């Protein structure tokens, strides 16, 4: 499957990846090649097969609702850029 430039740009936007036009071209070509390889799965009839998302078939693993030791505020913040004990993020309501 050949990805169009518009598709590649759209995927980069969905993935929140800032890619140069060179990178977009390169990944577009490489992804098309990988998708061609993946097409071979269509040779298999899977109409009667259930999907496997996880090999452990445990369901609803519950946890007691009790407070356990956890990170201090200082530890939780130690790897971020912070101001007044808050993480600094981009503004949500401004134009980018």
């Amino acid at each position, binding site marked *: 499957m050949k990805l169009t430039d518009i598709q590649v740009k759209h995927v980069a936007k969905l993935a929140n990846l*800032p890619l140069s036009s060179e990178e977009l071209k390169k*990944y577009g070509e490489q*992804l098309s090649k990988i998708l061609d390889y993946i097409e071979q799965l269509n040779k298999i009839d*899977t109409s009667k097969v259930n*999907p496997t998302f996880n090999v*452990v078939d445990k369901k609803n693993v519950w946890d007691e609702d009790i407070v356990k030791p956890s990170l201090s505020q200082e530890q939780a913040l130690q790897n*971020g850029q912070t101001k007044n004990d808050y993480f600094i993020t981009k503004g949500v309501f401004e134009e980018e």
Partner: protein
Amino acid sequence: MDLTKLSLKQTIKALEDKQFSKQELNRAYLSKIDTLNSKLNVFLEVEKNTLGIPAAIKDIIITQNIKTTAGSKILSNFLPPYNATVIGRLLEKGCSVIGKTNHDEFAMGSSGENSAYGVTKNPWNLKKVPGGSSSGSAAAVAADMCVFSLGTDTGGSIRQPASLCGVVGLKTSYGRVSRYGAIALSSSLDQIGPFTKTVEDARTILEWISGEDGLDANCHGKPFQPQKSFKNLSGIKIGVPKEYFGKGLDKGVEKVIREAIKKLEELGGEIVEVSLPHTEYAIAAYYIILPSEVSSNLAKFDGIRFGFDRSKFGAEAKRRIMLGTFTLSAGYFDDYFIKAAKVRTLIKQDFEKAFEKVDVIVGPVSPTVAWDIGEKFDDPLAMYLSDAYTIPANLAGICGLSLPCGFVEGLPVGLQILGKYWGEDTILSVGEIYEQATDWHKEKPKL
């Protein structure tokens, strides 16, 4: 006596007998690291003040207040505030982290070349790749720069570098070892496991690190209990899948593997041909499932709570995020992700059927020995195809062992022993019986 040549078992015994102290042990390893690390590029961080049994840890497993980069520039300043479950358990057993090992960025790669911190060299030949993604952890054991190490295996990232570096590597059954504190690549495939100098050591490490911790919802059961239910191979059925000996398998590697199988037969094993008919589709299914999970897992790297912004991802990370974002996107999800998940069921059923007839399945780990640095770097698809014999086990969630079984032109070859889900005791027993009957694990690279 060179302390660094001892296995974990020998080291523990020698410490108990007071043949040397933990300080002497650590000094010996640190001096080895000092001599070899600039040549091999194995360690990204070395801890000088260790007092335990020196363990090397893949830098994708987080260690409290020891820098953890995941092999990426995006985490080049990351100081984890807590330890992964496996680290806590090793510390309780008297081990210490002697250093953090290099690997392909976020464990994506088969050669170690995708690390943002340069390629690790294969101790057997410095022009060759050590395999990947747990490149440094495999090379560290091969070059005796630690007693043992930990890696992660998502599509072969423990077994393949173990094979290419001539050490023992164990991929545990999915859910056997807690992934808490292992930076997630592909959550339905990732497992932590050891690299060791002997199969017996792998058994010990598995005992130490396995069992549920309440922090990884998929991890279950009690810690692994060695049974050693058999002492020889009589009555043991050893499956040989014809699909693992087809096109693409190097003739030299095939010869070594066939000889190893003959040895297993001499040791009393019954060789049974089995078929895993969907093997040829494993890579295609994997390269939908893995990138899809990657694109989701790596979404958290936005430079807010930790690390830098997303422009700092390396080429392979970007490529797989793009691929996974595409295969999960509206309009393509059913055709790609669901289709791959269905093929995964067929691959899992292949193993279930085969294991009705046999106790273990053996074959090559890697279709070739270590290749030249740079050889496949610009061709991602060629690189992906080198994992053809390891990926199916991850998709099925079963366990697998790689152990030294010979050489081709001076480069190690690993024998893969695959077991049923939760069948670690059986594959370790078969591996141990083979190891005791051969001397391949005693060979060391000349450095």
